């Protein structure tokens, strides 16, 4: 016996197998991100102060638009197959994949930006944010000691700030000249990396996990666009189903981002 309902729906449920499978998988994803969002809420409730405005909102908005675009193109790709228009499918799916790559590219620029953006907590209780001369990666106070550095040259984002930077993100403009900060005055030094604070910890965890989903999704979609599309000739119905299933996953990734964006960038 062969496995039934791989492409034709089962009469009583009206569904083909993969569709049930993907929705179940998405159900588990809902719980995965649900747990992370719950953690976000609790960390935020528990925090003394929750940084805001440290992320670049225009970039985030643009990336949201990119992802939304890819979501509509992937459903158009499926619709094209339904209308028997294979070239159009190729086009729309191609755009989807390009959007995915664009999203990842932009995200990695954002990441890189954060990795070189530092905060120093001085022993007098004030803090400053800015860049260190030479834009080093992953420096912190322990590494200063390990490398026997007795000072850093620090380009502050603008004077002493006790609270977090103002809205509008790390505006490159108002940089002061580099000043010397002695090691002995530094309590703690950290870039905007996960270890910086629970805010960045959850930010990086959520966005990296989301980015992994984007990577996984675009690999699958790329397969359907490239070598996998041969199936259109042999079993068009099943191929269309595959696109639908891939699309469902892709929409879910988009959906997660729809929440991630306001929660991490705006609130």
């Amino acid at each position: 016996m062969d496995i039934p309902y791989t492409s034709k729906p089962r009469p009583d449920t009206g569904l083909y197998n993969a569709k049930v499978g993907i929705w179940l998988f998405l159900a588990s994803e809902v719980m995965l991100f649900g747990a992370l969002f719950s953690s976000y809420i609790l960390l935020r409730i528990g925090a003394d102060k929750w940084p805001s405005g440290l992320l670049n909102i225009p970039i985030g908005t643009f990336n949201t638009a990119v992802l939304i675009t890819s979501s509509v193109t992937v459903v158009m790709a499926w619709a094209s197959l339904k209308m028997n228009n294979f070239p159009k499918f190729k086009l729309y799916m191609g755009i989807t994949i390009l959007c995915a790559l664009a999203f990842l590219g932009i995200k990695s620029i954002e990441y890189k930006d954060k990795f070189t953006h530092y905060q120093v907590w001085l022993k007098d209780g004030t803090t400053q944010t800015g860049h260190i001369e030479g834009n080093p990666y992953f420096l912190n106070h322990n590494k200063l000691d390990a490398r026997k550095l007795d000072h850093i040259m620090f380009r502050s984002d603008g004077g002493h700030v006790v609270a977090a930077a103002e809205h509008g993100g790390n505006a490159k403009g108002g940089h002061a000249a580099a000043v010397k900060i002695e090691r002995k005055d530094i309590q703690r030094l950290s870039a905007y990396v996960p270890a910086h604070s629970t805010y960045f910890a959850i930010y990086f965890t959520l966005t990296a996990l989301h980015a992994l989903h984007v990577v996984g999704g675009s690999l699958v979609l790329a397969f359907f666009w490239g070598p996998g599309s041969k199936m259109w000739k042999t079993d068009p119905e099943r191929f269309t189903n595959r696109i639908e299933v891939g699309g469902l996953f892709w929409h879910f990734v988009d959906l997660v981002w729809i929440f991630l964006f306001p929660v991490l960038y705006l609130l």
Partner: protein
Amino acid sequence: MQATSHATHHDHAHADPHHEELGFWRKYIFSTDHKIIGFQYLLTALVFLMIGFGLIALMRWQLAYPGRAIPIGGALLERVLGPDMVGKEAVTGKIGVIMPDLYNSFGAMHGTIMVFLAIVPLAFGAFGNFVTPLQIGAPDMTFPRLNMASYWAYYLGGVVMLISFFIPGGAAKSGWTSYSPLATVVDAQYDINGQTLWLVGMVLLITSSLLGAVNFITTIIQLRAKGMTWMRMPFFVWAQFVTAFLLLLAFPPLEAAGIMQLMDNVFDTSFFLPTGLVVSGKPLDISGGGSPLLWQHLFWFLGHPEVYVLILPAMGIVAEVIANNTRRPLWGYKTLVYSVITIGFLSFIVWAHHMYLTGMGTKISTFFQTTTMMISIPSVFILSCLFISLWGGSIRFNTPMLFALAFLPMFGIGGLTGLPLGFNASDIYLHDTYYVIGHFHYVVAPGTIFGLFAGIYYWFPKATGRFMNEFLGKIHFVFSLIFMNAVFMPMFVQGMAGMSRRMYDGGATYSLEKAPEVIGALNETVMRYNISITHAAIGLGLAQIPFIINFFWSMFAGKRVTSDNPWQATTLEWCTPTPPPHGNFLKEPAAYRGPYEYSVPGAATDFTPQFQAEKP
């Protein structure tokens, strides 16, 4: 229909165009056939069951004879694990004393291995895989390659867990619950430590379970044979169905937690680390701001549904075996089904009964103890239905039935002792004592393991075409039953006396002998149980030898079955050839009636299988 001979089936099989010959690797190692995968799960998980037992045997030695070298293999163990882990006896200098760190590692890994690498893979992976598609009349799982991936993810997870014993610092040592901050601060001097590997292993195991769960649910929804309506499904399938949902929805939060703890351990984040941590007199160099309770909530959000993952498949097996060997229908099939569904729902909202003493507020702990009491009701229903099913039966006491019958009171003890733990006011005294250890081992060891043994003896003939030996089986049963109780019953006494769990010296610090002036110190009887339990545990291990012999011997030399339905059972798996070929059924099966039509008045035989067509 059932009595068709072997030879004819064989011919059919060859006539089947899909039955091409696969090479050894594709057929037995990287197989996509659910039966082979089930067998792979079975063997791997049994090995892990043995490893889990080996760990606890060493721990029990230390509990019974604190500071004494293990009698055999001490020097070898020291060579493998190093002198930090295995020390010398104070007086004689004999090598082979389990050190506290090793004890904690073994404890954590015993729990982890037993739960995630032995029992779940047996109950869900092995039995679920082998039996479910057959019972619903499906040719295979819906996603055979995904099924293979599940097994290999499980296998990899197991390998990672085992490797962790041999890295510097040794395996995870914060209990199977891995509470932060201990899990993060212990062994922090190593970049990659046992806890890191534990987390990586867990992510693999979770992935395996998630893929498995998707596969199982889809299979049950989509591949039921003609006529196999929901209310005609064997209870075992229902149990697997609910179990799969528990895995699907409860595991992801632990995966999230695992990722966050991994971040804490590797990237120095503070998800579970509050502000102001001071370890060994030095403030920790972290941002702080996290919450240790967050980990506990995420862990137990899985942890409680997980315990039903451990028990429900066993209940399913027991129901099948009881129906078959009482030769009458299960009593209250619908009640069973609704109860198991109810358990599924409730199991998600009781988790914090593991956390009554974490400073929980009155309102929330009232909520959780109410739900905890509610969940015990459907368990009582299930047990009652199984008990009442016995009434009016014509009971055959073969080995599977003996294990299934023993399951009932053993689970009863385990379940009942859950009640005093379930009230927050009485949990104050019992929390983290051996009473808890006794409680849950009664459900998982003489409970679940007996259920699984029943299943192994029961479906062995279908899988191999041969019976297991009844005599060895009965020896296995009798001694297992005696020793199981001898191991776990005294633990209630110890717990009531106030002995804490996870004690390297078996509570000697708190004994009258060490602290005679203290009121409420543990008396000699309680302490002596440490020794008797250990002896019983060794006896329990030895009692498995007949089983192991029986298992392998019967596979090649057991009594052959003479029919495809040797137990004269009613469910669909018994209408396939024995052992079932790839694709399972020679012609499309159909279910014509409910799953347990035994001793139907007026029928020719005392069983009327689901697959027997209505007489025209």
